[in-house]
């Protein structure tokens, strides 16, 4: 399903396209910005208002880790939406690679990068302890999140403008991931329906084995639903 030559071609395209390089560096940039804010801004905030953000570092870490898969998923979705607008997608679906192979190839990149960036981000921020096993699991879950975002955006948006509109709407996901902060039971229930929420839970409560199982199941379920949703809409319209 995943061919190496096509992967290589994708990679070459990325190197040639400055925008993709930039997108590969922006996550690091974001981590650094978060870190700088923590170093300089948190003491100021504490002195000014008496509010100690340190109590919420689990949420800060989760928010910054979630940023990468959401963004990479969206970038790849836009790449595919642009290619569909330019009819490259149709071309791909009549090559031996096929449309499924094409989509898989596209999504491998954010998946792998999200895993790598999770570790990088964790060590750059260095504010909250997570056991290595849980961190590894979180990194894979975030990789899956990037696939979910990418497939979802690609499937629901049939052109660029819709893509932008939904991408904006997807900002809600990050908010829902941190929804426990609001301490509203109904809102937390809403958040718990989404995979992103469970990443935050796992970051904050990293040795809870039941939580681990729950988040894996939720992620698996979502991946299954999204893949089927994508398949269905592809066979219906294309």
């Amino acid at each position, binding site marked *: 399903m995943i061919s190496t030559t096509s992967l290589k071609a994708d990679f070459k395209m990325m190197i040639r396209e400055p*925008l993709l390089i930039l997108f590969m560096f922006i996550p690091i940039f974001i981590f650094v910005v978060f870190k700088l804010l923590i170093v300089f801004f948190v003491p100021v905030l504490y002195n000014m208002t008496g509010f100690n953000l340190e109590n919420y570092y689990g949420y800060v870490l989760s928010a910054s880790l979630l940023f990468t898969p959401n963004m990479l998923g969206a970038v790849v979705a*836009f*790449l595919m939406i*642009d290619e569909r607008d330019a009819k490259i997608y149709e071309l791909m679906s009549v090559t031996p690679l096929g449309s499924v192979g094409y989509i898989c190839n596209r999504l491998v990149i954010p998946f792998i990068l999200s895993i790598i960036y999770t570790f990088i981000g964790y060590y750059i921020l260095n504010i909250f302890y997570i056991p290595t096993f849980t961190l590894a699991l979180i990194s894979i879950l975030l990789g899956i999140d990037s696939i979910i975002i990418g497939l979802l955006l690609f499937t629901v948006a049939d*052109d*660029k*403008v819709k893509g932008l*509109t939904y991408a904006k*709407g997807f900002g*809600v996901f990050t908010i829902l991931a941190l929804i426990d902060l609001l301490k509203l039971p109904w809102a937390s229930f809403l958040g718990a329906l989404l995979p992103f929420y469970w990443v935050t839970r796992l970051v904050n409560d990293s040795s809870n084995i039941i939580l681990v199982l729950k988040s894996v199941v939720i992620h698996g379920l979502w991946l299954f639903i999204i893949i089927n949703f994508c398949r269905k809409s592809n066979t219906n319209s294309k």
Partner: protein
Amino acid sequence: MRTIKALKADVLFQLKQGFYIVYIVLILIYMLIISQLPSDASKIAIPLIIFGDPSIVGFFFIGGIVMLEKIQGVLQYIVVTPLRIREYLLSKIISLSILGEIAGIIIGATTYRESINWLLLMVGILISSVFFTLLGFLTVTRSDSVNEYFIDMIPYMFIGILPCFSLIDFPYNWLFNIFPSVLGLRLIFGAFYGISAANVSFFIISGIITNILLFNYTENVFENRIVYGGESK
């Protein structure tokens, strides 16, 4: 008159693209979050959210809209109708500003417990929304894909957003008052906290002048790049 017709077209287009529905959902979320904040924090958060989303929304959307019109070829056809480029730009700016105004007013009205100077709020949103939509137009004349647009956006983003930090007091920070984004933000804050009449008139005039100059520049760039395909006179 043609501008009104074009505006109708744009609103219809945006409606069909699902802009408004997504935006309503976002507004509801903002309202939910603000309502959970302690009232001290919400007093600062509300103007910042109104500036950070409704008044910038045009920057985000205009790229997609113009790119799609380019790809579908509609833009290619529009340039052979009597519709002027000026009118084309204006109708897009107005449509996105209306979206921003409505969103800003709803957020303000539903969350802020004290009185707001509505006229000032609307003027503030308008000045920054026009500015950001124009920056979006300038960005999109270069880009052919959404990802390219995001990258091309970055320098314009700096032009629009960075000067806003001049709201923090430092020597000569008034020099940044030529940026409509700064002026818009100051007016929006003014709508909540009060602002002197002299400042209001200065900010509004300054904002209008910069926006008009930028509009003329954008019209030129757009005409050269889009209508004439980069071929000069």
